[in-house]
């Protein structure tokens, strides 16, 4: 179902009032004009939301790592130190921008911008809720895969353009790591597309039910393993520890972003944290039920019928419940990502490549074949549905 956020909003009276007012002002039908402006507003809101979560992610990382190491994190700037990321942003903006003399100017300028734009533009299919997804493209997850690959290009160009041996090595290792781990991610996503029957985010999420047992995670053993394959491979794609060899702090100084200072380095760091958010969001959408609220409260029908609320109000409340459900699961996964970073030691580069090509890719291929055969043999039913059929038939026999 090709829906954008405007399709959801156009159900409300206020939107139609605004369109009517503008149509009177202009003399022609102002739907696309209002839609264009509203898209711009929501795109800005989405960028702001992602940047804030990225900044708070840096703060959360410092606080959680402090908690894991029995100390207190930053607690000076603002209540409980929560404004620390703003202070960091101001610091980065006011730092001197040193461009070494030996760099390749054009690629040096565009590398951090590529990382950031790749990550921001993947947000347009971010499935926050059924109505508030910016645009529900029918090739949603395919588009998402393409845009997050821009980060790999940005990292390699950052390393290449710096013309410093640390950066070059870091950039090449980073690029080979990212492209290697894209393969298990893509194959697992193909498996989920197979299961759901379409590439759009709406179809991927609505192939799951509301209760925990209806999540894609518990659909068949192949998707269960597939969740862990996807999570590990996507984590490796974001260059986070234990896979952070390209920016290995103790080995390569700073890897591919050694020669970048000020806001350019800020773009690389922000892109990494936003990419973790996106990876966790897509993992919830594909495996953990996305924005579905238990007992199907998200569609607003239950609220409308049982409590007798106005239909549009019930739908809006349902949307907020869906956003809450999605963000809870995403941030829980975000916590797990930060937890993993401060618990596990870093992988050596040949261990990294062995893990990808000799373990994750064969497992992902095996999952794909297994899931395809399962869907064909059992006609797309999950383990839970098969068990309930088993009990029903045996109960009926008595």
């Amino acid at each position, binding site marked *: 179902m090709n829906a954008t956020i405007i399709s959801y909003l156009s159900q409300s009276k206020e939107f139609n009032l605004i369109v009517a007012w503008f149509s009177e002002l202009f003399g022609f039908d102002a739907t696309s004009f209002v839609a264009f402006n509203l898209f711009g507003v929501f795109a800005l809101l989405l960028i702001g939301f992602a940047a804030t979560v990225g900044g708070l992610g840096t703060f959360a990382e410092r606080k959680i790592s402090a908690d894991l190491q029995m100390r207190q994190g930053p607690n000076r700037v603002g209540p409980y130190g929560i404004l620390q990321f703003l202070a960091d942003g101001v610091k980065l903006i006011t730092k001197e921008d040193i461009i070494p003399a030996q760099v390749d100017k054009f690629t040096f300028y565009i590398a951090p911008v590529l990382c950031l*734009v790749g990550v921001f533009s993947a947000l347009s299919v971010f499935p926050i809720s059924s109505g508030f997804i910016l645009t529900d*493209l029918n090739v949603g997850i395919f588009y998402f895969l393409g845009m997050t690959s821009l980060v790999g290009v940005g990292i390699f160009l950052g390393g290449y353009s710096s013309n410093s*041996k640390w950066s070059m090595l870091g950039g090449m290792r980073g690029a080979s790591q990212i492209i290697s781990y894209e393969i298990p991610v893509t*194959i697992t996503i193909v498996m989920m597309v197979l299961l759901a*029957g379409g590439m759009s985010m709406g179809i991927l999420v609505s192939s799951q039910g509301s209760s925990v047992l209806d999540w894609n995670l518990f659909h068949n053993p192949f998707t269960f393993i597939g969740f862990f394959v996807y999570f590990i491979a996507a984590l490796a794609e974001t260059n986070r520890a234990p896979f952070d060899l390209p920016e290995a702090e103790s080995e390569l100084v700073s890897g591919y972003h050694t020669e970048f200072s000020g806001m350019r380095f800020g773009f690389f760091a922000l892109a990494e944290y936003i990419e973790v958010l996106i990876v966790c969001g897509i993992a919830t959408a594909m495996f953990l039920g996305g924005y579905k609220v238990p007992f199907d409260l998200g569609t607003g029908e239950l609220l409308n019928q049982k409590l007798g609320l106005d239909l549009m109000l019930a739908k809006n409340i349902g949307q907020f419940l869906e956003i809450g459900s999605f963000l809870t699961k995403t941030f829980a996964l975000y916590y797990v990502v930060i937890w993993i970073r401060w618990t596990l030691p870093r992988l050596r580069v040949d261990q990294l490549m062995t893990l990808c090509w000799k373990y994750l890719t064969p497992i992902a291929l095996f999952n794909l074949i297994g899931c395809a055969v399962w869907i064909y043999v059992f006609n797309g039913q999950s383990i839970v549905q098969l068990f309930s059929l088993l009990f029903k038939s045996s109960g009926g026999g008595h």
Partner: protein
Amino acid sequence: MSTLNLDVYMPVVILIILALLVAGGSLLLSKFLRPSNPTELKLTAYECGEAPVGTAWSNFNVRFYVIALIFIIFDVESALMFPVAAVFRKFMSIGMGGTLLVSILTFVLILVAGIVYCWKKGDLDWVKSFVSQELDKK
């Protein structure tokens, strides 16, 4: 038969343009707020205090190229698998699931054979072992 509804891509274009503007805007803001005192030492590459010798744009190890090649093969495979996977359920509902399953399995098994070949030949090893070369000499 289905209409090509390109209007859904408008927010995508708007978001990309806004992201570029936000990135460029913060760099511009930084340009006004930051100091600028380039000295000769600051403009050299960083090499832990030593003076760097030569550029970094020299030969690199061929294993990066081999990894990139294997990636291309598997990426093209997955890109070609997407349309098949997207219509698998529809085909099952009209009773042609078996043919599609056979085509998926054939495609994936050919590529599994490919990765097994790469594995045996040693292309997936990051560190090429010296032991096998010495045994060959004998």
